[in-house]
């Protein structure tokens, strides 16, 4: 009959250091792949809204015109599907878990002024080019018509 089988194991525990760490006094270490939270590289975002359609929870909001991206971190379950779907790869799943907050509300990310300015300039440039192309086309058409009338 085996009595007190566990005693050697229990005695060993008396001489071992604790296996737990005294978090938060010692920082926790996360592996590289840990799915802690979603981060965005907002200046690369093109506001296409793929992430919003991919999110199974509906935790994301995107406003293309205002250049904003909003996430409700309390709804997000960090599945990483948005990061997989992002065509510009500007969404990342990075370590570090959501901290407690007093209010349950979304976090708003807005594009920097420079990025908005650069985007506006790009848009203006594109519009100017389009207008130029249109004018050139019209001029060509006119010249052709004139040539036809003369001919």
């Amino acid at each position: 009959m085996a009595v007190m089988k566990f005693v050697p194991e229990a005695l060993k525990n008396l001489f071992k250091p604790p296996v737990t760490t005294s978090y938060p006094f010692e920082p926790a270490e996360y592996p590289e792949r840990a799915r802690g939270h979603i981060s965005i590289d907002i200046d690369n975002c093109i506001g296409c809204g793929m992430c919003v359609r991919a999110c199974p929870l509906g935790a994301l909001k995107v406003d293309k015109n205002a250049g904003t991206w909003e996430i409700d971190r309390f709804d997000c379950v960090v599945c990483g599907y948005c990061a997989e779907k992002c065509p510009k790869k500007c969404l990342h799943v990075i370590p570090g878990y959501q901290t407690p907050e007093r209010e349950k509300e979304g976090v708003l990310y807005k594009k920097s002024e420079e990025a908005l300015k650069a985007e506006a300039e790009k848009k203006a440039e594109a519009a100017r080019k389009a207008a130029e192309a249109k004018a050139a086309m019209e001029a060509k058409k006119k010249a052709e018509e004139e040539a036809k009338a003369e001919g």
Partner: protein
Amino acid sequence: MKKRSIVPYGPQHPVLPEPIHLDLVIEDEKIVEAIPSVGFIHRGLENLVQKRDFNQMAYVAERVCGICSFGHGFGYCEAIEDIMDIEVPDRAKYLRTIWFELSRMHSHFLWLGLLADGFGFENLFYQCWRIREKILDVLELTTGGRVIFSVNKVGGVMKDITPEMAGAILDMLASVKKELKAIAPTFTEDYAVKSRLVGVGVLTKQQAHDLGCAGPFARASGIATDMRKLGYAAYGDIDFDVITSNDGDSYARCYVRIREIFQSISIIEQAIEKLPEGELAAAVKGNPKGESFIRIEQPRGEAIYYVSANGSPHLDRMRVRTPTFANLAGLCETLKGADYADVGLLILTIDPCISCTER
């Protein structure tokens, strides 16, 4: 006739990890009948298939339960792949097998700890959960999540196991094997533990068969049922035996699960050794149309996934038959004639997962 009384048991009870309610009809100290009722944590996840597209549902299916999460995501993806005739790359199959067995190991360690807690052996309980922590660390290293992995997608897996990670898994397996060997005799040989387990809640082979029990609960009663033998994922290439016991009591259930942990260690070692090179996922084109029926072996037993699709991104129906649901009838049978003091322990021996059962 002796005086009968009805004692409500649960849904809130120190021994229960999840809410289930039992009405126990007792005569003196003996249970005459147990009437279960579930429905405290129903979330309607199956109905979500009509609102989320089939790719998003892989993430929802995974969140049916916190312990057998990998199996649920896997079973759902297998069903969709079956409908769409997608050939999953070999490497993905092996990776799925490795993760599935790691999740089985952590589930069984969790159960061993709960069992030790159930018969009041706190130190043993903490030892089991300390060992389990190593498995969770490795899962976090390889998948990024401790219990919810989010690595399965329709067509394959999303993350790879690098050679360094495989090394970390093998190191972890060696140390877990050593530590389990140190504490397993306490479960299987200790006099005090045996007095709580041997001969308690006997379920004969015939009863287990008639009541349709599944998983380690049925295997402890001598029924050699193991869906892994169907050869899904990489199980067809791996050498393992179905572990059974003929005693049918709580001790046999504990014994079967301890041996299954050693078996899982062996399966993972074989899978890492044979891990082929190649793609992680096959391309998925179009939407599923048709229906499929998949059986897999969860840590708690056989789980069935039924998916019906209509050719749109949204499915018609998804249905999960979980092992706990199959085992509840067996539980009520084992409770008959048991002492009132053993009820908590007997509920634990089926390894109840009520979140899965109610979805």
